[in-house]
């Protein structure tokens, strides 16, 4: 009996895989969890452990489990401030209650061990800054430069839980910062002296404790008074140059301040970019009514502007902005006699002039035979050089169009005809014939298409019937005496009629000198 039991035990032991159930630390996988949150719809890219949000913002909470979410576990859940909140691995929601919240991901694994990870979320609305209820009111005049000045403004936290901090800056008209500070109170006393007849800017931004900035900002301006009731006019002059273009040119502007008697109490000259804003400020002047006149000294294309200003005692008055506009477009002409029809050469030269800012090749576009050749042009002292070396030969007239736009956006355009550089036939060119001389008229067919000449025409006498010679070979010539040309300038046409009916003409001139050629 005992032997049988031993054998049975041996058999059971040999058949069992009990070794597989023995704990082996090397085979264990460590589990880790991480809670993440994201405010982006695409939660993959921007995840974090903490964030500051508005109550209406949607957050995505993500449970990251290593090695995977499919491990054996008893349960998992999320808590919000210690209370059971959600039971999904990942979910989207918002937290409406303002304040600091702790969100925890809790996972209890198969063995009952608890793992957790915590996120921090601050919920709040930005503070509200009243940008109209401010002291001093923007535009306040006549503040004493020697007295302390009180600033005050109103703001509140809509959640009533966060303190508000204020970023306060004070600067003068030249943007020199006099004060840049952070305050916990919504008021400030500035005790340092100001400059008389000066304009100052002050700005306030409000932030709550969690860094949310108020949508509103205070941007105030005030002016200090002068000595003995003197006043001052400030203002700006805008020029019409293109704002997106950098210009190296300086424009000189003269500004005059003319009183009611017509006397210029002050004249100033400003210099600045042609596409910017120039600021001016008068010396202390008596209170009164003044006409401010601005004009360009060196750029005649810029039209002047003026405004009338009434300034009270001890006031710094901001005049209406003046605008010097370049309303005149550039002019375009060919260098050779301002002709519209041009001979095709290696380069063509044009004058492109503007009495405003200097033009650059970027301001000019050139098309030849409907193709842009902007990249090859150059501009030197108002002379535009258009290289034509790469232009294909042609037996017809072609169109060359130039367009120039100045920095104020004024555009001018002009087209020129470029003569053919290849002809269907060769013949005489312009010439002069003296008394007693003879001229050989000739024509030689060179048409590139292989057409057969039928007849050659010489229209010397401007009659309806030109001299016609039947074409037996491609070249014909004969002599005429000077007496055949009765006018000082004689227009001559040479033509070829081809067997397919096409007739081509070329015109040239014979200048008749009624004297003999000097030897």
């Amino acid at each position, binding site marked *: 009996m005992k032997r049988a039991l031993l054998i049975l035990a041996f058999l059971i032991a040999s058949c069992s895989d009990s070794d597989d159930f023995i704990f082996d630390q090397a085979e264990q996988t460590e589990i880790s969890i991480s809670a993440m949150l994201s405010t982006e719809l695409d939660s993959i890219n921007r995840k974090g452990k903490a964030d500051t949000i508005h109550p209406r913002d949607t957050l995505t909470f993500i449970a990251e489990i290593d090695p995977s979410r499919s491990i054996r576990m008893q349960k998992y859940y999320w808590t919000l401030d210690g209370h059971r909140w959600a039971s999904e691995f990942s979910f989207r929601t918002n937290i409406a209650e303002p304040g600091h919240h702790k969100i925890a991901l809790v996972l209890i694994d198969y063995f009952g061990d608890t793992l957790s990870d915590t996120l921090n979320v601050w919920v709040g609305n930005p503070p509200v800054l009243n940008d109209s209820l401010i002291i*001093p009111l923007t535009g306040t005049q006549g503040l004493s430069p020697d007295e302390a000045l009180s600033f005050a403004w109103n703001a509140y936290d809509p959640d009533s839980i966060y303190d508000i901090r204020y970023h306060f800056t004070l600067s003068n008209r030249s943007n020199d910062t006099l004060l840049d500070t952070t305050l916990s109170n919504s008021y400030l006393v500035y005790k340092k002296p100001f400059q008389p007849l000066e304009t100052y800017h002050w700005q306030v931004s409000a932030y709550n404790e969690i860094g949310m900035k108020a949508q509103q900002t205070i941007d105030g301006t005030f002016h200090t008074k002068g000595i003995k009731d003197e006043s001052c006019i400030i203002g700006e002059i805008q020029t019409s140059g293109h704002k997106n273009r950098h210009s190296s040119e300086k424009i000189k502007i003269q500004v005059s301040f003319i009183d009611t008697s017509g006397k210029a109490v002050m004249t100033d000259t400003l210099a600045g970019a042609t596409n910017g804003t120039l600021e001016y400020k008068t010396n202390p002047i008596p209170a009164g009514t003044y006409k401010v006149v601005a004009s360009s000294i060196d750029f005649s294309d810029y039209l002047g502007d003026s405004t009338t200003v009434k300034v009270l005692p001890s006031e710094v008055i901001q005049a209406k902005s003046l605008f010097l506009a370049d309303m005149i477009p550039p002019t375009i002409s060919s260098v050779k006699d301002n002709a519209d029809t041009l001979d095709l050469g290696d380069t063509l030269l044009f004058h492109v002039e503007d009495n405003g800012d200097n033009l650059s090749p970027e301001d000019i576009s050139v098309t030849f035979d409907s193709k842009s050749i902007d990249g090859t042009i150059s501009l030197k002292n108002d002379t535009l050089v258009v290289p034509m070396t790469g232009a294909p030969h042609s037996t017809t007239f072609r169109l060359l169009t130039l367009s120039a736009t100045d920095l104020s956006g004024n555009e001018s355009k002009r087209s020129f005809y470029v003569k053919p550089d290849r002809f269907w036939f060769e013949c005489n060119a312009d010439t002069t014939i003296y008394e007693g001389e003879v001229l050989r008229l000739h024509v030689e067919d060179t048409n590139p298409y292989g057409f057969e000449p039928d007849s050659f025409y010489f229209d010397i006498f401007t009659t309806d019937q030109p001299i016609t010679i039947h074409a037996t070979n491609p070249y014909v010539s004969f002599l005429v005496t000077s007496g055949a040309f009765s006018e000082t300038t004689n227009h001559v046409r040479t033509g070829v009629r081809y067997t397919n009916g096409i007739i081509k003409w070329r015109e040239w001139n014979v200048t008749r000198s009624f004297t003999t050629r000097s030897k």
Partner: protein
Amino acid sequence: MYHKRQHGRTSFGIVTAIALAILPFLFCSCLDIPSTPENRREIEHISVYVMQDGILDSSLLKIHPSDSATLKVNVFPRQYKDDLSFEWIFERNIVNGHVTETLGTGDKYVIPPAAKEASIPTHLIIRDPLGSEMKISLDIAVNTPPHMDSLLSPTAGDTLYGSTSTAFEFRWQASDKDTELGDKLNYTLVIDGMRYNLGTLNHIRQSGFAPGPHSAYVIVTDSYGDLDSIAPQEFYVLDTLEGSL
């Protein structure tokens, strides 16, 4: 032998049955079974409030020194109040500990007018019938309300000359007996119905006044929330500068 054993087993069974029958009776007669917990309520809270001039204050325990004030105990549920005893004490810290003095007993204590520090309780000791006690700290604020003295500029009926951009001076004066004890005064300037919270400022310059009548007054508030104000002061703005040019 077999029979005896059988008899003995029968006797043991009878005794056991009797004992089992008697045992519950004995238990029931010896034990005083308490009432069910649901029927017994605990004291949920005890608070102290102050009554002065018919005004109840349970948050700041703030009194002003000129009139008498009454401290009262509020117990909830209130039927337990009669079971409790109360002792109002004044406790002062000294170098080696503290000195305690009983000022009164009962669920109310009257602080006399112009009370000295030692006659204002600092703690309340509450005892139940079993001798358990609880000590509540009292932080009674003796605060004199601020007084808005006057609007120094502009005063009532003043005529101010200037344009809408002219800065006019507003200056006022208020007083508070407790400022030496750290009480701070905050001001709200109300101009034509618009309220400017100015903190501790007592002087500003403001513009934006169209020609015609305007009004202004100031509300002063101290650190304890007591406030005072003056009646709106009417002043006039006259734009003579425009006509001078």
